[in-house]
């Protein structure tokens, strides 16, 4: 067992994120999207593919075109060496962040030096809940919240944390504006892998609506509860996309001259009540911060997934996130939220931002259906 001290993020790439069904990626198989991202990540980082231990892929609905063991198949489509293994991970929205955590654990265990941690979701081609949703009737009778729709949980958080509709809309507009500006200034370009589709190349995110105003959003009908406050405009859209990060030991990175974005300081997961799953990041982040021995005040980059504006606001408030540190290039409300791909995106993004913006610590965290949170603390190298 080699003497390994640290785990680092040494590369991040993603596909453009496109609106499900009507976007540019709707007609592309998810394994094909992910394979292009993985291949390009390897090309950009110049890592020797023969050194990769495993391809760990997060996917929230691993069935149909996302079925079998999609990780292994992505490896084959991407022409990875046969020696690179593949495993698919499901922790719903936290799937590809979990992939990174697993890689980190393996590295620290001495069970490999280099991992590709990817995420994929085609919400066009595999519906949320899958093709055959079959909840356990007895569990449903005992605890219906176990299967509660995400929109309903967002409403619950909004009312419990008293997040007004106006606050949610202001938050959503800010997210759209940040993302639109980042796109216009070319700040998203480097992380995006152009995806080739039938001779066309897709290179721009398709969900962003920078021109959205609070007045536009105020005109929308509630999406989940006629008396509620959550609308389509304050929810992340159904999205197609893939993401990938290169996770390796610090020793390996320095020995091979890889461009390290950030060092992993701590990770955590935590359960919470399923009917308020959106608040999951709070406990997970507190645990991870405490494991890193730092406080939120020490953090200068926060990537807090915007499943819904209501839960993102509630988490940011409870955690004391400084607004200027939060989702600097926009969040999922604007960019989109391809469930399995979001975790790797926000860890990769937080790592890149740490490098770009300066500061010492970054946090990436997200809520997870069924009542959980997951968090990652990164440190500048």
């Amino acid at each position: 067992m080699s003497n390994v001290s640290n785990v680092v993020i040494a590369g991040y790439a993603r596909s453009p994120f496109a609106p499900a069904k009507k976007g540019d990626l709707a007609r592309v198989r998810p394994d094909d999207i992910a394979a292009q991202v993985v291949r390009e990540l390897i090309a950009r980082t110049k890592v020797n593919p023969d050194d990769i231990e495993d391809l760990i892929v997060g996917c929230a609905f691993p069935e149909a075109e996302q079925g079998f063991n999609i990780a292994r198949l992505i490896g084959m489509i991407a022409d990875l060496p046969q020696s690179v293994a593949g495993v698919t991970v499901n922790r719903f929205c936290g799937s590809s962040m979990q992939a990174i955590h697993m890689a980190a654990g393996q590295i620290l265990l001495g069970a490999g030096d280099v991992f590709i941690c990817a995420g994929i979701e085609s919400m066009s081609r595999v519906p949320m809940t899958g093709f055959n949703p079959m909840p356990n009737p007895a569990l449903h009778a005992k605890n219906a919240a176990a299967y509660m729709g995400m929109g309903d949980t967002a409403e619950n958080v909004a009312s419990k944390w008293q997040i007004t509709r106006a606050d949610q809309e202001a938050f959503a507009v800010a997210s759209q504006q940040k993302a639109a500006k980042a796109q216009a200034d070319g700040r998203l370009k480097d992380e995006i892998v152009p995806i080739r589709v039938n001779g066309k190349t897709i290179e721009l995110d398709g969900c962003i609506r920078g021109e959205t105003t609070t007045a536009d959003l105020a005109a929308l009908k509630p999406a989940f509860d006629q008396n509620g406050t959550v609308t389509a405009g304050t929810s992340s859209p159904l999205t197609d996309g893939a993401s990938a990060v290169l996770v390796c030991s610090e020793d390996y990175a320095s020995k091979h001259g890889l461009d390290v974005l950030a060092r992993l300081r701590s990770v955590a997961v935590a359960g919470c009540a399923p009917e308020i799953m959106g608040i999951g990041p709070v406990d997970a982040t507190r645990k991870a911060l405490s494991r890193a021995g730092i406080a939120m005040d020490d953090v200068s980059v926060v990537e807090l997934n915007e499943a819904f504006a209501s839960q993102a606001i509630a988490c940011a408030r409870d955690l004391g996130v400084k607004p200027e540190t939060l989702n600097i290039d926009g969040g999922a409300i604007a960019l989109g939220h391809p469930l399995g791909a979001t975790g790797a995106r926000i860890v990769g993004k937080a790592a890149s931002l740490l490098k770009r913006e300066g500061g010492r610590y970054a946090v990436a965290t997200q809520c997870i259906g069924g009542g959980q949170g997951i968090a990652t603390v990164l440190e500048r190298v």
Partner: protein
Amino acid sequence: MSEIRKAAVIGAGVMGAGIAAHIANAGVEVLLLDIVPEGASNRSAIAEKAVERLLKAEPAAFMSKRAAKLVKTGNVEDDLDALADCDWIVEAVVERLDVKQALYKKIDTVRKPGTAVSSNTSTIPLAALIDGLSEGFGRDFLITHFFNPPRYMRLLEIVSGPATDPATVKRVSTFADVKLGKTVVNCKDTPGFIANRLGTQWMQLAVGEAFALGLTVEEADSVMGRPFGIPKTGVFGLMDLVGIDLMPHVLNSLQRALPKDDPFHKGTRDLPLIGEMIESGLTGRKGKGGFYRLNRDGGGKVKEAIDLTNGTYRREEKARLPEVEAAAKKVSALLTAPTPAGRYALSVMARTLSYAAWLVPEAADDVVAIDEAMRLGYNWKWGPFELIDRIGAATLIKALEGMGEPVPEFLALAHDKTFYRVENGKRQYLGRDGVYRDIVRPEGVLLLSDIKLVSEPVLKNGSASVWDLGDGVLCFEFTSKSNSLDEGIISLLGKASRLVKDKHKALVIYNEGSNFSVGANLGLALFACNIAAFGEVEKLVAAGQQAYQALKYAPFPVVSAPAGMALGGGCEILLHSDAVQAYAESYIGLVECGVGVLPGWGGCKEMLTRWQTDPALPKGPMPAPSKVFEMVSTATVSKSAAEAKEYKFLRDSDGITMNRDRLLADAKAKALALAENYVPPQPKELTLPGPSGRVALEMAAEGFHKRGIATKHDLVVASALAEVLTGGPADHIQPVTEAQVLELERAGFMKLIRTNATLARIESVLETGRSLRN
């Protein structure tokens, strides 16, 4: 040259676009062209916008998504060459002779020789249109006058000139009849052809006389509606519908075009109120109001009507005149009533009917053409000559004489006769020479109404009849009110089955009502429930299931041929038929949940089977129940037969007949084809998810409830439906039989019918015609 495989429509206005859409409905590719707008960057913008409008049109212009894709757009400058590939070119541009002629000259340089070119003009004579054009163009040119909206109006007036090649007329007429489903009426090259000329005369008389005789709009419409078999919108309601501002244009053009001695001119009156209404935007339903309006001031909805004496609105008051009600039995009584309504009826209808008689041979060769034109162009139940027969030609002549009006020669000829009669089992019409001739149906047209003239039903009770169509095929006809399904129908189905089995080859289920069937007789169900005779209700549910299963597994083929609505139990009978031959305008759906029950005559079972065997659906036990749940819980009804295939209310192999009059012949042919070496189907087993699936469907319904889309009782109904569709206690590794699903249907139906909320829904539908959202 014999077939029309590709067509073009030039002019993407309301009519042109609508014609293009309907040609696409027939499965034929169609090029829609219009001019290039001045300074436009998109040179085909007009045609493209027209297609966008078509896609949003209500009622729908397209019968299916597939049809919409068959319309290609372009412009007359860049795409004219493409006309060379077209077998029929329809011109529907602005009504200006110079514009049309300039276009024809261009068309003539690119079209293949022999390609039919027709104009949709409603005012310009054919002779003028082809004046100065090439001889070849004249040979291939005709007028095809569609009615708005082209998909739904069955009338097509065709005018050919002396130079027109009869083969061209035949080719276009056959396509219009078989593929577009139109009834072709051949007209002379005279202004307004038949329907608009006579219809406008009727409208101007009906409006003018209402003013002159001091009737209210409600009174006038009650007289000019039902008693004469005219739609209940009467005349003022119709004006509101078509646009009051359109009337002066139509009147002017006819006044200019018709010779000075035409009786049309005598009907014209100066009505200042109409001009004032148009000026202030009161142009009817499309404008700020018309003769009627819905006043939404103060948040309410008050139906108002205009006072013809001063142009102000007041609350609408439904007219209930005794002489009008009495006319339901005998229409001539209304014409002789010594009341304003009677005088009004007489003054308008005597002159309208007299004008109709005057139009033979002026505008048409015979009475059949004129009657057909008014029935299909204005939705009159009876054509003018059928009306004269109902009134009596002698009575009409006497009335005209009393009014000092001239009696047309042809009407005088009929003074002691009827215009129609039945002789040797054939319907005949009176010619101008006083000779009766058979009405000859085009080949491929078979009408039950004709069969009834020559035969007696082979079986009959109060709700249904069975007729012999010949060649070993029997026809089962519903005769109950609105063709609703009841015990009588169920029991006669059993008898009919035995009869077919013993002596015939096949059974066709068909009728000539406006709707195939609106479903089970709710009145009877409600009555039984109100006296707590639930056992009787359950017996009827079981009897229906047995009868439908018996049809499905009978040793002979059953072909159903719906037209109009086939809802609830009416839809279920289609689902149990071996094949369906549907009229293109069939509106099919399982609507039971709307009245708080669920499909109990095998509808759930059949829909599950159809969706579960669809290879395009993902595998597993949930997709089929989810799909059926989505449709049935929301009482989805198809807007066409083509759309019914998308929902699987019809199979891909089921036939669609575009022309209503050809439906029975097509259905009979289908039945006979199936009868060759017929083998009944085998029962299928289903894989259903059981309670897990039920929970998933209930969760989906709960979501709709939260969003305010599903009501509280909708959840109760959805839950019972989910129980049936997921197979009750089923486990997906154990197949479920048809009998088990039928049992679940019965139990679910009985559970719901015992709830007060369901009974309240049924009561509401019966009393108000609207479903209650409780």
